[in-house]
């Protein structure tokens, strides 16, 4: 049986980074907003400081089938429940660079974005003021034009000081890492305590997760968040050119239809295309045939080492303490491969879990492992390169022949890195080892390629032939259907995506409000 419930102005599917910001902005302008969130309700007081508990925040919805040589790592890379992935994201918030928007015109590869840096710069500036980013824009010599950060930089603890010496010896620069984490009290949120529990979700609100920042604003405006509400289908009128609502299933499996003037998909880069593909024969908003295409994931180049000095690896934020972007601009001037990468230096590390030092050297067991763990607890150092992933049409989300309990096809995600992106990752790994050697590491080694962040799948562009949406995330085929999140990125750049997700979403929200009657008519 299908239950119909009220009509609302806007339905937002997903309560993560994009959904919560969109909900706050639209509701503050007087729109009646309902968020459908597939996962359970999470509260700040649920965020137990434990790497074992942290796993509960991971994707727990319908399984995603994955293949390809470098599978997308959906469970590790996605969250589920209030705040989505962003609830336990590490808040490393650098900006994309000018080149990232012009990869096609500069290098005749991949795509240009339909906007350039100057279009998005004011939104970066406004978001950083609104949310709070700690950093030092002068030390960040690579950063494109923009306002100074509103908060002083994050402190450097022993681990980053030790590793920074290696960069300096090789003539490379380091700066404080830009983090959406409060270095002092800001916007009613407290300063960080630098205890490294961000991966388990920050319950103090020092880190700008949706639960800390935009969801409380949305809730203040009476935004209704329905949890355990997995959207199954976007409904359209007979013409197929207007979205009229969303069908979802509640926890007990009941089918419910909610009507709205506008629908915003903010269910992240795998579930947004799944929803579109399941909503019409051949996929909704899919004139381009590109719904699902060009999914990307930054390749993480992991570098580990042991140092004679005390590194206090337990101090700091999970995202790290310092940044280097010497290998960012001039994408065609890398030692191997093509693209941009940045180093995030000195992550706070715990003993266990995939990113813990226990997992860094899986060949060790028995007495040697015991010895290693004791030493690593005080002398471990690590850094991670975030390596650009060039978009490929065959890297895509499609519908599987296997179905969930409601008969909805599961998402199937294929991902194999572009050969030039893979080469870029190899080069980054090698550079990392040279830096650790120069820093005086007594032992140094690399981890395997780890997929990090998910982008693409519903890319933006100028026309319905080459993209799914315009630069505002508005579907070319359906005016009142919007997409928000990193799924819109036509290229990945070599920086973490969520600051850009915020800037784009703010821009879209203003476009929606300024054009409301035209958009919904």
């Amino acid at each position: 049986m299908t239950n119909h419930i009220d009509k609302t102005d806007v339905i937002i599917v997903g309560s993560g980074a994009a959904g919560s910001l969109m909900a706050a902005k639209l509701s503050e302008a007087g729109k009646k907003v309902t968020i459908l969130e597939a996962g359970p309700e999470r509260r700040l007081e649920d965020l137990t400081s434990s790497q074992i508990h942290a796993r509960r925040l991971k994707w727990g919805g319908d399984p995603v089938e994955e293949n390809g040589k470098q599978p997308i790592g959906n469970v590790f890379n996605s969250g589920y429940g209030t705040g989505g992935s962003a609830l336990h994201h590490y808040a490393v918030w650098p900006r994309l660079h000018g080149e990232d928007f012009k990869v096609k015109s500069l290098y005749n590869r991949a795509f240009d974005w339909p906007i350039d840096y100057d279009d998005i710069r004011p939104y970066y500036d406004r978001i950083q003021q609104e949310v709070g980013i700690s950093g030092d824009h002068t030390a960040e010599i690579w950063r494109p034009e923009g306002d100074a950060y509103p908060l002083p930089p994050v402190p450097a603890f022993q681990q980053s000081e030790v590793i920074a010496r290696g960069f300096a010896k090789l003539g490379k620069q380091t700066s404080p890492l830009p983090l959406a984490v409060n270095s002092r009290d800001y916007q009613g949120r407290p300063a960080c305590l630098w205890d490294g529990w961000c991966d388990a979700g920050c319950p103090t609100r020092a880190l700008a997760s949706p639960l800390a920042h935009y969801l409380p604003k949305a809730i203040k405006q009476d935004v209704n968040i329905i949890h355990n509400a997995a959207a199954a289908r976007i409904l359209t009128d007979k013409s197929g050119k207007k979205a009229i609502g969303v069908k979802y299933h509640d926890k007990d499996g009941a089918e419910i239809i909610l009507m709205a003037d506008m629908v915003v998909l903010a269910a992240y880069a795998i579930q947004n295309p799944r929803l579109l593909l399941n909503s019409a024969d051949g996929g909704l908003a899919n004139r381009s045939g590109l719904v699902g295409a060009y999914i990307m994931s930054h390749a993480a180049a992991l570098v580990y080492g042991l140092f004679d000095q005390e590194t206090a690896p337990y101090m700091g934020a999970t995202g790290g303490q310092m940044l280097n972007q010497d290998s960012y601009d001039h994408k065609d001037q890398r030692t191997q491969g093509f693209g941009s990468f940045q180093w995030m230096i000195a992550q706070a590390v715990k003993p266990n879990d995939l990113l813990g030092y226990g997992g860094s050297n899986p060949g060790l067991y028995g007495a040697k492992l015991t010895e290693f763990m004791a030493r690593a607890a005080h002398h471990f150092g690590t850094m991670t390169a975030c390596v650009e992933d060039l978009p490929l049409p065959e890297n895509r989300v499609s519908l599987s022949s296997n179905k969930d309990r409601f008969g909805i096809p599961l998402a199937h995600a294929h991902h194999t890195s572009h050969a030039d992106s893979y080469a870029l990752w190899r080069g980054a790994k090698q550079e990392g080892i040279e830096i650790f050697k120069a820093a005086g590491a007594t032992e140094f080694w690399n981890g395997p390629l780890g997929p990090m962040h998910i982008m693409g799948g519903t890319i933006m562009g100028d026309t319905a032939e080459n993209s799914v949406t315009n630069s505002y995330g508005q579907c070319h085929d359906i005016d009142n259907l919007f997409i928000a999140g990193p799924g819109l990125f036509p290229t990945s750049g070599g920086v973490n995506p969520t600051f850009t997700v915020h800037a784009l979403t703010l821009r879209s929200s203003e476009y929606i409000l300024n054009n409301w009657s035209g958009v919904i008519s």
Partner: protein
Amino acid sequence: MAFLLGDGVINLTPAEAKTRKIPFRSLDQKQVSTLDFLSDAIVPGAKSAGLSHFIDHQLSAPHEDNLLILRYLRINPPFKDFYTSALKAFEISVRLKYNKPPLDLSEAEISEFISIMRQKKPIGWPEFIEEPKQEVPPAPFFYFVLRSDAIDVTYGTVNSFDNMDIPYMAHIEPAHPWESPS
């Protein structure tokens, strides 16, 4: 974690559950002994930290709340067959190589076996086991998963941070090291 004891439910750490001999829900005694033996050889201390109780408890947890590292690793739930089939494969392979059951292996023998299983398929490690037919995970993958589980219980707890002389600095301390309210 909530363990069933008689008619009631009590919250215990896996180590406490082990000391109090809380009955297992998913694994039988032989599987528990084999799991303890192998995991303790990979991560010394895992057995007394209560690894078997941790895994056993998590095997019956709902997927959404599951705390096993396996959920990251592209294996879909339920996870029980993953462990039980690999333990069976371990026994088959050990018997073939050493002509004795796993628990009779010397320290040198189990260490030698682990050095093989972490890198490649040991002789006799089946792809499937029969009755009921189950797919067996590759030995290096099983090693990786079991090692990670064992590191979780041996090093990922408030007590183990104390033992390593590193501060835990919890915002919200787990009521028990990895207690789950479920």
